[in-house]
């Protein structure tokens, strides 16, 4: 085997090894979020009533919150990580209650009864949870699972999307600069 053959073998093998190593390091389940920067898909969803015998009546539209920062959290009572992030979301929702920030939960593949019981167990409803039959809104937001959180800026554009758990620090870091964009009449 001469030097030229060795060189060719190395040149052919090295890129393959590089591709293999890159593949080993990347998470095959990770989906890069595609919707930040796009107009937030509008929705009109029914609010989940907190009393079991209450008929759903309120319809909440995203368009109604134009001019405010909207935090959308997709969750389910069967989702274990949702249990971890919920207190953080509640804390930030309370912190920004008197400012132009709206928190909305969107229920994903869950029964309202289970969701109600879960919310009661977690300290009660702090912000509305909306029902999404057929996951149409979830698909509109490119949902890959729960929990996922989307932040819509005052102009109605998706500013942030997080696949997985969010915490207070992350939310505040994203909300604060967007609040500066809120135009007060």
């Amino acid at each position: 085997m001469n030097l030229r053959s060795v060189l060719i073998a190395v040149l052919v093998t090295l890129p393959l090894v590089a591709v293999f190593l890159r593949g080993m390091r990347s998470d095959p389940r990770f989906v890069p979020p595609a919707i930040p920067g796009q107009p937030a898909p509008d929705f009109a969803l029914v609010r989940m009533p907190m009393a079991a015998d209450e008929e759903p009546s309120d319809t909440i539209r995203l368009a109604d919150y134009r001019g405010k920062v909207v935090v959308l959290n997709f969750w389910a009572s069967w989702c274990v990580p949702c249990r971890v992030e919920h207190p953080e979301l509640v804390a930030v929702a309370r912190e920004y209650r008197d400012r132009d920030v709206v928190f909305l939960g969107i229920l994903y593949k869950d029964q309202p009864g289970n969701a109600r019981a879960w919310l009661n167990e977690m300290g009660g409803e702090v912000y509305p949870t909306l029902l999404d039959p057929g996951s149409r809104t979830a698909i509109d937001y490119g949902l890959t699972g729960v929990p996922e959180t989307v932040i819509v800026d005052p102009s109605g554009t998706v500013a942030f999307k997080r696949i997985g758990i969010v915490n207070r620090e992350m939310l505040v870091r994203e909300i604060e600069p967007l609040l500066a964009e809120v135009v007060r009449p």
Partner: protein
Amino acid sequence: MIRRPSVFALMLVLVMAPAAALAQAEPQDEVELEKLTSAVASQLRCPVCQGLSVEDSPTELARDMRAVVREQLASGKSPEEVKAYFVSKYGEWILLEPKPRGLNLAIYLLPVAALVAGAGLIVRSVRRWTGAPSAGAPES
């Protein structure tokens, strides 16, 4: 007297024929729509699975996505428009077969290049094996 029933029968046929054709056309359209839905759904990746298409996945999200595909096709969107909708939501990742452009081209070109290089190598080796001894071998 004989003519009356035949005129009536003719009228009945004329009235019923389009209705029967319509009744047959609807299931046929449904079959076509179902075929097209399957074709598009098998090109989309199920976001909660490992290497499964929306068509093949039994998960609820995949079933909902398939329903969206069907609704959009039924509303008159083309398969390309439906795929573009999912790409706008999930990125190109959602397509099981990446579009042949940019770095993606490597996926399509590398196997061909490897095949050509391999064939070249075989031809060269065979020539060397068959050619070298005969050139260098002493004549008997």
